[in-house]
């Protein structure tokens, strides 16, 4: 594996961080998104299906957190709740210290970008450039700002505008389409990025390209929440993890692979990342396990 989670790529972090949606000033504490006691149930016919049962969490500024959980554990619902696309039955989300009802809250919400599952399904424009421009235009930016945002977003996801800008979205490969959808969200210059199962349904090459893109983004000072059940990519890309099951937080904070840390994964239809398992089998401290195969090779040889 040549992609390295921690590589800061071509995108210049200063530049990415510099232009921001008009929003409230940064809070002194490091927390960007905070949820408290979020509960939500879907009405299915006459039944109610609980998807979030009192979820509290904090996403620190510029952190990269994995949201792990088996299918149906409520990962997508949680992302929708954090972005305000669903109204919680109880509990509240604070973004940048702002609560719902505060004047600037809507603007703060807009600074949270969500990349949906199978995001390529939201592509609709006649060219990659036009599709990425949709979000910034909805935000009411001027033509120059839109075009700069589009160029930058396409660059970050590895679809440089000069080669891909005029392509029809549906003429791109599956992996390219997904990265294009990601660019559509990035162009709005979100400060936080919520990714919903971004690797699902992609071939290994496309996954690797996407992981490299996410790696570049975390270098850009963005707050990232990566919902996935792919523990290997989660381990490679994220410093912390939140384990979700049946709408509840089972564990949160830095990775831990003591007996409890392992069982919270295995008990919830997840597993220990391969490289961590390798380190465990080699009798080395799991906490020192490398994030990438390249780093593992370096440590072993």
């Amino acid at each position, binding site marked *: 594996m040549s992609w390295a989670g921690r590589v800061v790529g071509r995108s210049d972090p200063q530049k990415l961080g510099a232009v921001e949606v008009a929003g409230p000033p940064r809070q002194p504490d490091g927390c960007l998104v905070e949820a408290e006691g979020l509960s939500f149930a*879907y009405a*299915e*016919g006459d039944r109610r299906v609980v998807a979030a049962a009192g979820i509290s969490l904090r996403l620190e500024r510029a952190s990269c957190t994995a949201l792990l959980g088996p299918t149906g554990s409520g990962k997508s619902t949680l992302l*929708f709740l954090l*972005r305000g*696309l669903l109204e919680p039955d109880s509990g509240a989300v604070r973004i940048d210290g702002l609560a719902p009802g505060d004047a600037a809250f809507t603007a703060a919400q*807009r600074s949270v*970008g*969500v990349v*949906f599952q199978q*995001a390529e*399904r*939201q*592509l*609709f*424009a006649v060219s990659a450039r036009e599709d990425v421009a*949709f*979000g910034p235009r*909805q*935000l009411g930016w001027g033509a120059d700002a839109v075009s700069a945002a589009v160029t930058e977003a396409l660059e970050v996801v590895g679809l440089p505008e000069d080669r891909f800008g005029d392509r029809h979205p*549906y003429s791109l490969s599956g992996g390219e389409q997904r990265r294009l959808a990601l660019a*559509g*969200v990035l162009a*709005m210059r979100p400060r936080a990025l919520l990714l919903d199962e971004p690797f699902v349904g992609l071939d290994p090459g496309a996954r690797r390209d996407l992981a490299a893109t996410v790696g570049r983004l975390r270098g850009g000072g963005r707050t990232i929440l990566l919902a996935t059940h792919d523990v290997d990519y989660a381990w490679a890309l994220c410093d912390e993890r939140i384990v979700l099951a049946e709408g509840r937080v089972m564990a949160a904070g830095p990775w831990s692979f003591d007996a409890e840390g392992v069982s919270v994964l295995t008990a919830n239809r997840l597993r220990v990342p391969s490289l961590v398992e390798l380190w465990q089998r080699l009798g080395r401290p799991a906490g020192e396990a490398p994030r990438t195969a390249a780093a593992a090779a370096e440590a072993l040889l």
Partner: protein
Amino acid sequence: MKPTIAQHYPGDSVLHRLDPRAKIVAVTVLAVALFTRDSFIALAVYAVAAAVGLALSRVPLSWFWRSLKPVIWLVAIAFLAQVAFAPGPSFAHFGPFHLSWRGLELAAYLSLRLVVLVLTGSLLTLTTSPVALTDGLAWLARPLRRLRVPTEELALMVTIALRFIPTLLVELEAIMRAQRARGADFSHGGLLRRARALVPVLIPLFIVSFRRADELALAMEARCYVPGVRRTRLHPLRASWGDVLVLVLAVGAVLTASLV
């Protein structure tokens, strides 16, 4: 997140177990007969028939209310129109409108008839699954095959369409949510602006639907679907004495109503 179509209430009542063909014919007979005789007593007979059906169906009344709700405005307008413009000696005036006993009577009759009609119709749709309904209609339409109408294929198309409505609604919701997250606004602006706002939703929805249709067609072919071939059924329609009884009761109600 599964939207349910309000039209069918799954259950296991006497009415649920009846052959869909018998229910379709009985309801059609009652509905047509409802309009052939103008008398409160005849209407009462049909109302009683519908009430017995309601009780037998064991469907919560709120579900019948749900199917009544969309037509309640129609009922209200019909009522007001009749009250306002009906003939006969009037007993009160409001500007150009004058109230008459005859008008009130007519308004009450027509509104009640509409309510009974909707309730009778809901008895069919609430106790019959869409698939059974289509099967029943396909069977009843069989004579049309002599005229080379592909009734089986049409029935299959309807069944598939019904099957995919909830799926498409889920899809629609997901796409709208995604575009909303990208700043799309579906609820503000004039008609034109709102219509334009739907473009980012409709294009992906079409593409997903066509892709799905393609996949379904391939999957059906892979499972040896050949159009126009006579097929057997997993649940063949079988009429029982209960079905005959329903038809007899329906005709009985019509006869009673026309004799009283």
